C-alpha cells in the first residue's frame, strides 16, 4: 500500500526527515514515534505530497502512484479517495462554517462516489456515530466525535490507507481510547493500512505491528513493535522506554 525508499525531506537545504525504508501493507499498523520536531509529521505529509515548500527526494509509492513525480491531478485523485489523513486537533481540522455532512457530501461528489446519503450513513455508523451528527457544526461535536468523523470520511471515500498524525494527542485519555478502538477495528476487520504518528510509546505499543523511532530527522530504530519495545537497540529508544512512568 505504502512503499517508501530513501525519503529525504528538506526545508531550504536543511534536512528535517530522512527515512531509508518504510512499508505499510493492508491490514497492517505501522507507528512512527519520536520527540517533538523529529520529523514525524513531515514524513507523513510527504506521503501525500502535502509538504509545501519542501524539497522531497527518494521514492514514494502510495496506492500505486509515484508521489514525487505525480502531477497535481494524479495526486488529488489519490488524496482522500485512496489515502486518508487524520489529524491531531479534531475540531480545528474541520471547516468551522460547514456542517459535517456538507463537507462529506462535497468530498464524495468530488471523487464521484454515488448514492452519497447511504454511503454517508454507513460510514458514520461504522465509527459508532449517530448519523444525526452529520447535521451538526464542528463546534457542536466532541473531540472524539470529530476525530471519529474524520475516520468516517476515509471509510466513505473508500480509502485503503489512513495516515494518522497524532490523532489522539488532543483528546482526553477516555476519549482517546474510543478513537484507538475504532482505528484498530478498521485495521483488523477491513484490512486498512494504518500509518500512525505518535509520541506516546505506550499507546503505540498497544496497537502497532511495527515501529519506527525517529530523532532529529533520522530513523534511529525500526522493527516489529514487540521486539523494539522488549529489546531496544538504540540508546534513545531505551531512554524513551525508561521515561515511561
Amino acid at each position, binding site marked *: 500500500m505504502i512503499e517508501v525508499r530513501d525519503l529525504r525531506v528538506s526545508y531550504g537545504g536543511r534536512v528535517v526527515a530522512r527515512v531509508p525504508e518504510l512499508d505499510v501493507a493492508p491490514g497492517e499498523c505501522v507507528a512512527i514515534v519520536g520527540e517533538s520536531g523529529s520529523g514525524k509529521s513531515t514524513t507523513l505529509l510527504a506521503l*501525500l505530497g*502535502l509538504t509545501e515548500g519542501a524539497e522531497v527526494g527518494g521514492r514514494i509509492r502510495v496506492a500505486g502512484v509515484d508521489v514525487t513525480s505525480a502531477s497535481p491531478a494524479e495526486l*488529488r*485523485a*489519490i*488524496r*482522500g*479517495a485512496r489515502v*486518508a*489523513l487524520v*489529524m*491531531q*486537533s479534531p475540531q*480545528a*481540522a*474541520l*471547516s*468551522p*462554517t*460547514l456542517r459535517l455532512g456538507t463537507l462529506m457530501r*462535497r*468530498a464524495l461528489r*468530488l*471523487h464521484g462516489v454515488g448514492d452519497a446519503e447511504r454511503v454517508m450513513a454507513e460510514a458514520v455508523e461504522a465509527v459508532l456515530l449517530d448519523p444525526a451528527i452529520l447535521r451538526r*457544526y464542528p*463546534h*457542536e461535536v466532541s473531540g472524539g466525535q470529530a476525530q471519529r468523523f*474524520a475516520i468516517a*470520511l476515509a471509510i466513505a*471515500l473508500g480509502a485503503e490507507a489512513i495516515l494518522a498524525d497524532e490523532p489522539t494527542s488532543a483528546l482526553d485519555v477516555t476519549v482517546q481510547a474510543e478513537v484507538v478502538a475504532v482505528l484498530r477495528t478498521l485495521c483488523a476487520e477491513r484490512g486498512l493500512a494504518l500509518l500512525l504518528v505518535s509520541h506516546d510509546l505506550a499507546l503505540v505499543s498497544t496497537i502497532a505491528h511495527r515501529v519506527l523511532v525517529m530523532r532529529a530527522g533520522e530513523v534511529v530504530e525500526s522493527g516489529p513493535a514487540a521486539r523494539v519495545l522488549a529489546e531496544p537497540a538504540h540508546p534513545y529508544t531505551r531512554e524513551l522506554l525508561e521515561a515511561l512512568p
Partner: protein
Amino acid sequence: MPRYLIRRLGQALLVMAGVVALTFVITRMVPGDPAVAYAGPKATPEQLAEVRARFGLDDPLWVQLGNYVRDLVTGDWQTSLHTRRPVLEDLYHAFPASLELVGAGLVIAVVAGIPVGVLAARFRGRFPDFSVRLTSMLAVSLPVFWLALALQTVFASNLGWFPVAGEYDSALDTTSPLTLWTNITVVDALITGNWPILTSTLAHLVLPALVVAAYPAGVIAQMVRATLIEEASQDHARLERALGFRETTILTRFALRPALNPVLSLIALVFAYAIVNGFLVEAVFNWPGLGRYAVNAISSSDTPAVAGVTLLVALMYVLANLVVDLLQGVVDPRARAR
C-alpha cells in the same frame, strides 16, 4: 441569544447617549452668537432676546442638555440656521441621496474587493498577489477629493463618457416625473419602473460611486486576502487538501465563508467612513446628499445642521455595527452559540 441581544442593544443605547452628550458639548462650544446667526445681521436687540428665549439659550447648560435630549427624542432636531427648516426634514431629504451614493460605492467595493482578494490569496507571493496588494494600497492612499477632481476632469469633462455632476438629468423631472416612495432615486425609479430616470441616475452615479468605492475596495481586498491566507493555513485547509480538493475550491468554498466575518465588520466600519468620505465626493460631483448639506452647514457655521449630520452619521455607525454583530451569527455558526 435574547440576553445577548438586550445587552448589545443596551450598549448601543449607551453609546448613542454619549454621542448626544458629546455633540451637545461641541455645539455649545461654537464661537459666535447662535442667536445672531439665526436672527440675521441687522436684528435688533429685542429680536435677539426673543430668539434667545425661543431657543432657550439663556437657560443653564444642564437644562439645555435636558431640553436637547428631549427634543431629539421627540423628533425636534432644531432648525437649520441656513435653510431655516427643521434639520430632521433637511436630513430626510439629503440622507437618501447619500445612502444611494455610499450604497453604490460599497456594492462596487464588495463586488471588486472580494474576488480580487481571493485572487491575491490564491497566488500568494506571486505576481497577481503583488499587483493586488500594490493596487489596494494605492486605493487606500488616494486623497478622495483629489481623485474625484481627477476622474471628473478626465472622464466627464475631457472624454465626455459620463455626466459631469448632479444626480440625474433634471430635464427628466418634466418628461417623466418620479414618484417618491423611499426618497432613494434609484430605488424609486426601479419600483415605479421609471427607466429614463433610472438610467440617467445610474450614469451619474458611476464616477462618484467609483471614488467612494476606492477606499473600501482596497481595505476589503486586503482583508479578504489576509483572512483567506490565514484560513488556508489552518488545519482544516490541510484536511481539505488531503481530501483532494483544489486550492481554488478550498479558498472559495471552504475558506471564504469564515473569512466573510471580519469583512462584514469591516464594512460596518467603512460604512460611516464612506459617508463622510462621500462628503468630499458629493461636493465635487454636486451630489444632492448629506455632504453638500454638511459642507454648506460648515461654511455658514450652521451649528444645528452640523450637529444633526454628526448625530445622524454616528447613529448610522452604531446601527451598522449592531446589524453586523447580529449578522455575524448568520455567517458564522460559532458566533450563534455565543
